[in-house]
């Protein structure tokens, strides 16, 4: 333990360790800062597929953002608008169709495991005719979605005002259409809010003059 080579090795090791720590430090946040939070949701809903590939507008499902404080999580019935028919990824459905044609039989209805969770929450299951129908044995159990963007309770945020003046959803939520799983992009700190308010008050939104207040009681009331 007293040989010089040990010292050299230790110093080099320490240097590398410090380097690693330094690189890691960029992704470390102060306590309570949830930037980059990307929880695993109970149902692997893909925004990349729906908002990206299928180009469904945000408000289609989160229409409450226009009408209330919360953008809201769409009711399962909204999902059912399409998923009454679409019970599995298209590729799987087509494969089953081809197989059925080859075997000269009616294609079987297949249900993907993720969508099965949706049907479970609504108490639906495939009946003998392989159709979705309410199953009296299954209780209604809402999907426990995990909230990603979460403000402290002493701060009031209202989606309405922001959507109405034309603040794009991406401004705060980022390119959700590229995310498989939703990730929080901002740090949601007070400075984060206020800086945007300051800019908006000065420069307007989409060329229109807006009054973005920086009074304390605008958010803390």
């Amino acid at each position, binding site marked *: 333990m007293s040989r010089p080579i040990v010292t050299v090795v230790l110093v080099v090791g320490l240097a590398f360790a410090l380097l690693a720590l330094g690189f890691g430090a960029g992704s470390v946040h*102060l*306590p309570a*800062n949830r930037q980059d939070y990307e929880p695993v949701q109970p149902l692997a809903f893909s925004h990349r597929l729906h908002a990206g590939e299928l180009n469904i507008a945000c408000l289609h499902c989160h229409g409450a953002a226009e009408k209330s404080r919360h953008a809201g999580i769409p009711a399962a019935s909204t999902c059912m608008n399409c998923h009454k028919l679409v019970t599995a990824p298209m590729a799987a459905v087509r494969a089953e169709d081809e197989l059925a044609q080859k075997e000269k039989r009616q294609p079987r209805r297949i249900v993907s495991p993720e969508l099965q969770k949706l049907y479970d929450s609504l108490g639906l299951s495939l009946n003998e005719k392989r159709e979705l129908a309410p199953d009296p044995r299954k209780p209604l159990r809402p999907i426990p979605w995990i909230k990603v963007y979460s403000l402290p309770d002493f701060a009031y945020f209202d989606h309405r005002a922001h959507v109405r003046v034309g603040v794009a959803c991406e401004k705060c939520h980022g390119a959700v259409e590229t995310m498989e799983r939703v990730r929080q992009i901002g*740090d949601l*700190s*007070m*400075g984060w809010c*206020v800086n945007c308010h300051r800019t908006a008050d000065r420069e307007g939104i989409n060329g229109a003059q807006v009054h973005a207040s920086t009074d304390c009681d605008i958010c803390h009331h």
Partner: protein
Amino acid sequence: MAEAHHPPPLVAGNKSSADVTRDICAPLERGPTGWWWSAFLTSASVLALGAAAVAYQVATGIGTWGLNRTVGWAFDITNFVFWIGIGHAGTLISAILFLFRQQWRTSVNRSAEAMTIFAVMCAGLFPLIHMGRPWLAYWVVPYPNFRGPLWVNFRSALMWDVFAISTYFTISLVFWYVGLIPDLATASARARPGWRRRLLEFFSLGWNGSYRTWHRYELVYLLLAGLATPLVVSVHTVVSFDFATAVLPGWHTTVLPPYFVAGAIFSGMAMVLTLMLVARKVMGLEDYITQRHIDPMCKLTLLTGSIVGLAYLVELFTALYSGNAYEQFAAMNRLWGPYGWCYWVMIGCNVAVPQLLWFPRIRRALPAVFVISVLVNVGMWFERFVIIVTSLHRDFLPSSWTMYLPTSVELATLAGSFGLFFTCFLLFCRFLPMIAMGEVKGVLEHGRGNVAEEVAP
């Protein structure tokens, strides 16, 4: 002073350097005396009472205090200013008198500095408790935070307080410790092997008496004194800004800063006198703390007390002269209002009583000096109470006029702060050399007559 041609020696009893070491290390090396134990147990139990009161009010909330909507600041800030003021004499003795080369300071500076540190600790307690949630005290520090970062308000006098008090505490502690290093080395060299010796050695930083180090040390000590002097002025100035930056009659007055500084030194001097008069008896240090030390402290008390008295007069005169009805009312309310008796206690203790110190006979009568010093402390406490509460309790809106009375919780907290102060001081007396040996040895020859022969350069 008239007989100043023949100043008596600073240290009585014709001591040698070895005697100094032995005498001052003696309290550390012998077991605690009965006096010490009784004093310690008393102050520790008062401290326990205070701690219980603090625990209760933190758990319950500061609604346990007597504050109300009109008087939102009373006992806590009074005690805060009182304790901060006490601390100031320590720095005066250790730094300002050092710069003015007043050799008599050497016997008292160590204890006075310790007193400063303990007093600042007591002072800091009150704003901390008043926060209600003291565990959030770190919010006053400007650190990059998740709130924006939302920064502290540097335009608030209370924020200046945070910086002033923390700097004052740190620098006082450093100054005290730097002064202690050589003495710790001396004490550790004498100590019996054991944990105490190891501790003393650890903190003496390997001091070996090298004059190369002494040479630098002297300069550092001078620099620290030079820094501590404006610092001590700034601290009570900033404390006075807490009041003077408000627009309240009786608070907003431009002379408040220098007058607060004088008042702080006044009360601190009185506290040093109180402590030293007791300590020299109890610790058996009569040869080191002599009339040569008591006398100038009495004179400083007289001087600062008179300055404070003059400031009262200036304030009163200017309030009348100002032609501002509110100022005039506030001044009259102080004198003759419901808290008038506090004002007159303050005048009696702070202005009238110290005038006795004009007489050399009284300065020599140590029991009298002791009584005067205690009275001055009482008076200075009342001064802060008068300034704070009389200005607040009758504000601009007569319908909100009210009275303030401290609750038992507040009284217990005040008592507890005294318990903390004396407990710390007694521990200090017991475990650290309470007189700066290195400095006293340097002035042993003063007033002895056997002057060193001239040294050829």
